[in-house]
């Protein structure tokens, strides 16, 4: 599903040039649950942003489902972000002015689907993550764990090929972390492909395959 060859990304900080990603090579098959572990500054966030089509590499190739991402237009990338990839972030990144239901609807609304249909599907997914009854709560009325569940529902609502999780439990206590990880593992069991980025080895080892990243280099 994903083929990455010799991916490179550099940042210029003042006088120094930092190699965030140094010739990364990575292959991920469908239905795999892979975790990428590395310390802070290892380049894992940069990698995830490129995986998620939020950022572009400087060189190398990234093929996602037969699409050459580095050659794709902005329009094509937007389509991939909308239909093929679902994101979960450490700090949830929900829209605070919208309630849970409205948050989950957003990806579907961007597909031009009617409001009625969006509503129905969104409700379905909120129920799947165990938030039935909390549809009309705003993010500031939900606990961290609940907010992350909303984010997961939103990530999955469009049936994406890939779920990208960037430190999904980073802002949660250990009990809630466990709940969220259980949910993620359950999703994998149902056939969802997942890439999870973390610095915590306890989280990382709950995946099928662990890949280490350090100083921009990947170690299997």
């Amino acid at each position: 599903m994903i083929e990455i060859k010799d991916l490179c990304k550099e940042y210029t900080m003042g006088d120094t040039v930092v190699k965030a990603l140094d010739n990364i090579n990575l292959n991920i098959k469908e239905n795999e649950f892979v975790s990428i572990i590395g310390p802070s500054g290892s380049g894992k966030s940069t990698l995830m942003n490129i995986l998620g089509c939020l950022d572009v590499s400087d060189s190398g190739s990234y093929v996602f489902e037969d699409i050459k991402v580095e050659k794709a237009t902005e329009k094509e990338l937007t389509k991939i972000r909308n239909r093929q990839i679902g994101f979960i972030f450490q700090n949830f990144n929900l829209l605070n002015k919208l309630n849970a239901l409205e948050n989950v609807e957003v990806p579907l609304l961007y597909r031009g689907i009617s409001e009625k249909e969006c509503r129905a599907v969104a409700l379905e997914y909120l129920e799947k993550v165990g938030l039935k009854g909390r549809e009309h709560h705003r993010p500031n009325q939900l606990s961290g764990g609940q907010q992350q569940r909303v984010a997961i529902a939103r990530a999955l609502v469009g049936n994406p090929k890939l779920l990208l999780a960037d430190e999904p439990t980073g802002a949660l206590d250990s009990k809630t972390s466990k709940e969220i990880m259980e949910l993620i593992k359950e999703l994998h069991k149902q056939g969802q492909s997942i890439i999870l980025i973390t610095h915590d080895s306890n989280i990382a080892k709950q995946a099928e395959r662990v890949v280490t990243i350090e100083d921009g280099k990947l170690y299997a």
Partner: protein
Amino acid sequence: MRFFQTIKLAIKNIRSNKLRSALTMIGIIIGISSVIVLVGMGSGSTKQITSQVQSLGTNLISANTSSNGNKQFTLDNVKDIEQIQGVDKVAPVISTNTTVKVDKNSQSTSVTGTTSNFLDIRNMTISEGRFIADLDVDYRGKVAVLGSDIAQQLYGFTDPVGKDIDIKGSTYQVVGVLKSQGSSMGNNTDDMIIIPSTTAIGLAGTRNVQNVYIKSSNDKDVDSVTNQVNQYLTSFFKSTDSSNRVMSQKQLLDTMSSITSTMTYLLGGIAAISLVVGGIGVMNVMLVSVSERTKEIGIRKSLGGSRKDILIQFLIEALVLSSLGGVLGILFGLGLGWAVSALGMSMTFSIPVVVVAFSFSLAVGIIFGIFPAYKASKLKPIDALRFE
């Protein structure tokens, strides 16, 4: 995203910060309402002046026949003017200031001598009795017709018809009272005392006719009659300068109309400036809004919002703000205009002005909203997400 969704989202965002939205709209509201009120006042005064001038009849021409020192224009010469092609009726006017006395009530006032045509030419009506007749002119009758105000001044509530009035020592008889016309263009006909032209010659002690009122047969002939009368008078008085002695109501109307039109445009232009300022206010707020919502833009882009989606979202928000301001401005402007007209100033409202004003507010929304919206759409999702 569907169009209706975007509108709902825009309304939601505007409501979430009511104070800011209200302050932004104030500029537009002031701009639109002042356009409506000022243009309304301008066109109201145009209409008022036009109707005043028109009430005298657009085929009315007034010729100044006062002597320039060389020659005198007399009642005999009036017949020459009557012969000019296109002339329907003429009425000479001889004015003089003298003392008028009723019982013990004595006043110094102006007395006007003219003929029977005067009534028709000047578009006046008799309310009691009759006007000066041709017979009165032929026989230099000592008869007088009073304007409504002066009749009330001299006789109170009693009917003046048939009563005596002393003009410069001679006794005249009041034969009629004119219907009130109100003052128009400085000419207050309600204060007039009218006697036969021939009698006025004797009273004034001169054969000089100061003015001749001319009515042309129809509106189309007014300009040609005006020119011909002017030519006649120029050659009569052997003037070397081309002083314009003749003016038609139509000319007066055209001049007044163009003055008031210019004034209306000027007022409208000033009001439009305030609208531009209001628009800049909208742009300012939208730019700040975009900056504040950088994270939101990043999130939306990560969920699949395209550049077009983001641009339209912010543009619609600016449009809703400005058109809402436009509607409120129109309502406020109409209300203010109604209040101003209740205080006595004449106002006219036209649908075109309201439509133009509203389209202006939409235009402001588009013009001043497009730049911030474009800025928002260009944000890179990864940079936007990193924004705290």
